[in-house]
C-alpha cells in the first residue's frame, strides 16, 4: 500500500520538522518527505490542505477492558476509538482479568489486537503475580513474550521489600517500571482530593501526601536498585518538585500526567457527578497550575489519556460507591489544543508530549516521521469543532465529564504501520 499525504502542515518535533509539504508512505514506512521517491505512484492520496500532519500518538495507559471486562468495552470498540483519536500505539496496564502475569495472556491480547487491525498494542506486565503484591511475576518471560514494561497499576503494593526486590529484578533485565504512586494507607477509602471541596461535600479525602510519600519511597529504591522508573498519572504540585529534584540528581526517571488533570480541578466537580470520580483525584487549582508548569518546562515528560471506559452502571450510584475513571482517548487531542490555545504549550510541544516523548520512554520506534521510520501518522484539523454526543463518540464508555461540550480539533486520518486505520466519514 502506497499512500501520499499532500499539502499538509507537517509537524515532527523529534526531527525538527515544521513546514508545509507532503509525506510519502510505502511498505509501512516513511519513504519520502516533501519529495516523492522516484517512480512513486500512490494507491491512496490524502489531501491534507489546511490540516496538521504529525506522528501518531502513543498512549502510556489505555484500558481496553479485555480480557475480562467486555461489559465495559471491548478491544474492538476501544482500538477503533483510539484510531479515531489519532493514537497509533497503546500501552495496556496489567489489571485485566486475568491479570497480565503470564505469556499466555500477552499472546491473547496480541492476537486479539491483530484481529482488531490494531497491532501496536503493548501489554504491560504485572509486577507481581495476580497483582497480589507478594510473589514476583515471571518478568523475563513476560518481556520475551512482548511486554514493554512492568507495572502494578493502581493496585496497592504494601510491602516495600517486595517492591525493592521487584525493582532489582526488573533492573537486571533493563525493564522499565511504570509506577502509579499512591500509598494506600493514606488514600484509605478516599474518593476525592482532601481539601475544601471534599470537606464541603463530606467525601472521604485522599491527601496529596498519599502520592508524594509513595513517590519518595520509590525514589529511594531507584537510588538503591538503579531500576528505570516512569511515574504515571501525577496529580500534585509537590510531586512535580520531587520529579524535578530527582532529574537534577540524575536518577533514571520520567513522568506523565493524565490530560484531564491539566484541565480540571476539584472546584470543577459538579456536586456528586460521578464522571468526576477519578484516581488520583482532581486536585486543587494550585496543584493543577504546578502540573501545567511541569509540563511546560519538561519536568513532566509526557501526557497520557488514562483511558478508562465504564459501563453505565459503574457510574450510577452515590459518588463514593461509583467506579473511578474517565473515558478519555477522544478528548486528548482537543484538550491538547486547548493547552496550545491558552499558550501553555506550542503546537509542536503538544504533539511531542503525545508522540515522541512517550515513545522514547518506552524505547519503541515510533513518534517520528523521519525517512525509514515506521509510518504511524495522524492527520488532524485543528479548527474543526464537534460536540461530544452519542453520534460523535466512538468509545463504548460514555463516562466523560466533557459530555455535551463542544471541542475543537478532529482527526481526519490515522495511519498505523502504513495502513489507514481511520478515515473520517468512512
Amino acid at each position, binding site marked *: 500500500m502506497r499512500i501520499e499525504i499532500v499539502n499538509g502542515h507537517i509537524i515532527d518535533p523529534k526531527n525538527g520538522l515544521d513546514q508545509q509539504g507532503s509525506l510519502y508512505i510505502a511498505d509501512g514506512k516513511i519513504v519520502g518527505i516533501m519529495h516523492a521517491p522516484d517512480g512513486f505512484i500512490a494507491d491512496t492520496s490524502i489531501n491534507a490542505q489546511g490540516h496538521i500532519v504529525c506522528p501518531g500518538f502513543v498512549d502510556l495507559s489505555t484500558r481496553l477492558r479485555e480480557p475480562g471486562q467486555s461489559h465495559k468495552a471491548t478491544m474492538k470498540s476501544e482500538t477503533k476509538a483510539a484510531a479515531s483519536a489519532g493514537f497509533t500505539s497503546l500501552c495496556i496496564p496489567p489489571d485485566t482479568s486475568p491479570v497480565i502475569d503470564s505469556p499466555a495472556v500477552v499472546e491473547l491480547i496480541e492476537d486479539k489486537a491483530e484481529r482488531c487491525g490494531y497491532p501496536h498494542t503493548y501489554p504491560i506486565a504485572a509486577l507481581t503475580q495476580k497483582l497480589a503484591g507478594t510473589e514476583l511475576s515471571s518478568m523475563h518471560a513476560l518481556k520475551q513474550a512482548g511486554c514493554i514494561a512492568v507495572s502494578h497499576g493502581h493496585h496497592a503494593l504494601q510491602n516495600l521489600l517486595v517492591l525493592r526486590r521487584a525493582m532489582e529484578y526488573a533492573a537486571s533485565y533493563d525493564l522499565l517500571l511504570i509506577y502509579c504512586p499512591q500509598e494506600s494507607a493514606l488514600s484509605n477509602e478516599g474518593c476525592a482530593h*482532601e*481539601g*475544601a471541596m*471534599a*470537606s*464541603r*461535600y*463530606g*467525601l*472521604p*479525602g485522599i*491527601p496529596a501526601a498519599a502520592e508524594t510519600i509513595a513517590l519518595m519511597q520509590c525514589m529511594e529504591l531507584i537510588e538503591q536498585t538503579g531500576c528505570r522508573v516512569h511515574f504515571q498519572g501525577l496529580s500534585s504540585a509537590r510531586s512535580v518538585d520531587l520529579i524535578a529534584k530527582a532529574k537534577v540528581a540524575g536518577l533514571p526517571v520520567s513522568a506523565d500526567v493524565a490530560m484531564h488533570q491539566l484541565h480540571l480541578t476539584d*472546584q*470543577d466537580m*459538579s*456536586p*456528586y457527578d460521578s464522571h468526576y470520580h477519578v484516581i488520583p483525584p482532581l486536585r486543587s487549582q494550585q496543584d493543577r497550575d504546578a502540573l501545567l508548569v511541569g509540563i511546560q518546562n519538561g519536568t513532566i515528560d509526557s501526557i497520557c489519556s488514562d483511558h478508562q471506559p465504564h459501563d453505565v*452502571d459503574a457510574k*450510577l*450510584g*452515590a*459518588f*463514593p*460507591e461509583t467506579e473511578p475513571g474517565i473515558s478519555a482517548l477522544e478528548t486528548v487531542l482537543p484538550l491538547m489544543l486547548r493547552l496550545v490555545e491558552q499558550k501553555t504549550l506550542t503546537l509542536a510541544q503538544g504533539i511531542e508530549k503525545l508522540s515522541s516523548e512517550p515513545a522514547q520512554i518506552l524505547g519503541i520506534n515510533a513518534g517520528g516521521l523521519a525517512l525509514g521510520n515506521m509510518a504511524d501518522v495522524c492527520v488532524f484539523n485543528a479548527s474543526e469543532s464537534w460536540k461530544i454526543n452519542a453520534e460523535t463518540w466512538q468509545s463504548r464508555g460514555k463516562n466523560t465529564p466533557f459530555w455535551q461540550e463542544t471541542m475543537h480539533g478532529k482527526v481526519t486520518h490515522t495511519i498505523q504501520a502504513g495502513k489507514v486505520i481511520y478515515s473520517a466519514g468512512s
Partner: protein
Amino acid sequence: MLAIENLQLNAQGKLRHFLSIEGLNKDLLTDILDTAESFADVSEQNIKKFPLLRGKTIVNLFFENSTRTRATFELAATRLSADVLSMNIATSATSKGESLLDTIRNMEAMQVDMFVVRHSLSGAAHFIAQHTAPHINVINAGDGQHEHPTQAMLDMFTIRRVKKQFSGLRVAIVGDILHSRVARSQILALNILGAEEVRVIAPKSLLPAQVEDLGVSVYHDMNAGLKNVDVIIMLRLQKERMNSAFLPSESEYFKCFGLSGEKLKIANKDAIVMHPGPINRGVEISSSVADGPQSVILQQVSNGIAVRMAVLSMTMNGNRGAE
C-alpha cells in the same frame, strides 16, 4: 466552574426536595422555622393531627440504622395524616446485590409520594433525587458525612425558641466534626441565619481539611473555645474512632473535649447545651450537664417532630407548585 445545580427548588423557588442546607437562603430557612413554630403551637394545645397530607404515602428508606430520626419522621408524617411505610434496609438489600437505583425503582412502582432517605454514603440523597420520578419528593435524613439538614433545622428551631434570634450569637460545636453530617448542616445553617460566630472545637485528627472554608473559627482547646459562647453543641463520639487511631482513649477525650460542669462555667451564664443524640455519657458529656438546667437536649427531640412536619408539608406543597 459549573453552576451548582439546585435540585431542591422548583421553578417558583419553593422547596421541592430537602437535601442540604447548602443552596437554601435565609428566607427559606426562616420559613421552615416559622412553619414548624405553627405546628409546635398547635401540637402543644393537644391537637396533634392535621389533614394536610391525607392520601399521601411516605416511605422512610433507612439504609443505616436510626431510632430517633426515624421515629420522629414517622410521627411527623402520621400527624400530617400521611400513610407511612418504614423500610429498614440497612445493607440487607445491598448485600443481596440490589443497587440503590433498583431499590428506588421498586418503591416508585408502589406509587409512593415521598422518600425520606438515610444512607451511609455522601451524596446518596442527591443521587436519589436526580433519578427518581419527578412527582416524588426526597428528604435527606442524613447522607454519609455530608449533611443532615432536618437535624440542623430542629437545632436552629431549638436555639431560636430559647435565644429568640441568631444575630449576636456565638455557637461552639465540639467534637468529631470530621465525620459529622450534623455539624456540616449546622455550620451552614448558622451562617445563613446570621449567627455572630460559629466555632469548632476538636483535635486536628477530627477536623476536615480546610474546615475554616466552611465558615468557622477553629479551636483545639475548650478553655479558649468556650469563652463568651451562647450555645454549645456537643457531637456524639463513635467508639470505633478509637480503633482507627483518631484518638487515644475515651478518658483522654473526655478530659480534653468532654463537657463537664466545670467547663460549662467557661461559657456565658445563660449558655444552652445541645446534643443531636444519642449521648455517650462520660465520653463527650457528663450526666450532670446533660440532665442539668442548661441542657435543651430533650427539647431538641420534641422539636424534631414539628420541624419535620414543616419540611414534609412544605416539600409536598413545592411539588404542587411545580405541576
